[in-house]
């Protein structure tokens, strides 16, 4: 079995970017936005369906679907640096996600730590993380607050104010059932911009990271590009990863090669997951 890697094309990497530079990276070259190949999404889906049937087929259980997100893929393909359990980096990431959402929606962040905690509290699904943060020692809490404040400052300084006509929407959830719902590919995209496709690629996806740049981040956004293609029938024209610690953005066009590599990587991960299931005699 080979593990697919991301295509060799290098993403556009900007040094710490100002707002206009970020806008340019998100917009890309308008003239290069491709026409949508009407058969592409269907072909990718069929390839995935065939692969799922070959790998996890014997473990089909629609009442307990195998849910696969970017973390599950990363863990299966290891050696993963994906975090597990509650930690300060996880708390920082959750707070920055909330602040990014706030900035995109309201155009301002007034009190980063307070706003971030308020955002986590109102959601009602972060009790464990909030308890973890509340239980931090004074030094750790101060360090976390300082780091969140610094990243929020970078965000406010360097993230552009997106025109509402770009239809920016945050935390957009995608759920792709395969094999009649026995396997579910899913993801939550930090930011989607652009109108739905009318025949030409028209949306852009942005993933926000509060940690340092990692090689697997490209595979993560490629996976999101695949999910968006399967959902909407049209690939996004652009995917980007924005690093709040530095204000850097990595952006690239979405090519057929990118999507094919992502399908292969997803199937490789599913094969490893199926191997793991076989060792323990099926889903537990």
């Amino acid at each position, binding site marked *: 079995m080979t593990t697919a890697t991301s295509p060799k094309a290098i993403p556009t990497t900007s040094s710490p970017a100002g707002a206009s530079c970020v806008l340019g990276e998100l917009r890309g070259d308008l003239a290069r936005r491709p026409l*949508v190949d009407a058969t592409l999404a269907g072909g990718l889906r069929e390839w995935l369906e065939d692969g799922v049937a070959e790998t996890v087929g014997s473990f089909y259980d629609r009442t307990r679907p195998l849910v696969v997100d970017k973390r599950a893929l990363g863990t299966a393909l290891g050696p993963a640096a994906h975090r597990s359990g509650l930690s300060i980096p996880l708390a920082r990431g959750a707070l920055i996600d*909330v602040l990014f959402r706030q900035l995109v929606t309201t155009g301002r962040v007034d009190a980063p730590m*307070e706003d*971030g905690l308020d955002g986590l*509290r109102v*959601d009602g699904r972060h009790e464990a993380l909030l308890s973890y943060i509340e239980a931090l020692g004074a030094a750790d809490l101060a360090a976390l607050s300082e780091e969140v404040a610094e990243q929020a400052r970078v965000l406010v300084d360097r993230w552009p104010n997106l025109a509402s006509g770009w*239809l920016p929407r945050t935390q957009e959830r*995608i759920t792709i059932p395969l094999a009649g719902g026995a396997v579910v590919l899913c993801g939550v995209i930090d930011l989607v911009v652009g109108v739905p496709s009318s025949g030409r690629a028209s949306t852009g996806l942005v993933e926000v990271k509060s940690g340092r740049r990692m090689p697997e981040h490209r595979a993560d956004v490629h996976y999101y590009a695949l999910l968006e293609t399967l959902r*909407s029938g049209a690939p996004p024209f652009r995917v980007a990863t924005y690093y709040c610690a530095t204000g850097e953005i990595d952006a690239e066009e979405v090519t057929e090669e990118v999507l094919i590599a992502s399908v292969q990587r997803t199937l490789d991960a599913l094969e490893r997951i199926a191997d793991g299931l076989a060792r323990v005699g099926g889903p537990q």
Partner: protein
Amino acid sequence: MTGTSLSPTRLPKAEALTEVLVAAPSVELGEAPDDLYRQLAAALAGAGSQLPPATALRVDGYFLRTALTAPEQLSSPDPFEWSPRTARRLLGLAAVRACVSGSERTPADAVEHVVSAAVEDARRGSQRAGSLAGWLLSLAGGGRAVVRAEAVTWATQLLAALDWRGLGAPPIVGSDQWWDGPAGCRVALRGRSEVRTPTRRDDRAPRSLTDGPTPSALFTMLGGRPSPVAALELGLAALASFMARPKEPSPARVVGWWPQCGRALVLPIDGPTLRNTADAVISALRAYAALG
């Protein structure tokens, strides 16, 4: 009871969804509406009388799906609380109405206006306790921003789902229907739909399909992916509409749209579909009653 799936790859998707939504009716009720209404009302009221004493139930899509697929979850229901997820539809519908009427240009602008207006109402004390406006007023800036963000995402999905200029007449945005039953009935129906719009008249269709007022079509946007009983959930929207407006034509169809997975399901509505849905509601009530 099954619906028809739309091709998931046809672009633009909004145009395809709108075409199928407003198309001329393809089936008719097939029986006298008054008789059908009386029979269904009697059956539902009868099922309600089998519920435990002093129990009254409102059957909505969530109840129907849960009772038919995992009834044990109904034995310990979560009390309702406002959250970004429970608030997004109300705020999003108001925002979409503003965009469709032309008073706002984008979902983000519209949601900002809707939330500001609600907070202002609550400040003036013109909202009842437990209201959405009161809850919004109680939130600090960070919390309110998440609520706005969630509503913008929801409203954008609904606005992007349809070609609004392709709807013949101004649609009703936010078109839920309630049926409370005759006096003493302990079962109420709630049918959820985001949009109600007239269907097109087809002059080539049989006269029985074109006589009288044009039937409406319902569009409902749901989260996640279609459940095994998705067609029944769509049928409930039509059943509640038919029971709530017995003097009007039954909806011609319900189109379900799951933006998270890009799936659409079309359910034409005729007499047997309404009867099947009512049977499913009665089965759901029995499953609930069996919990004790």
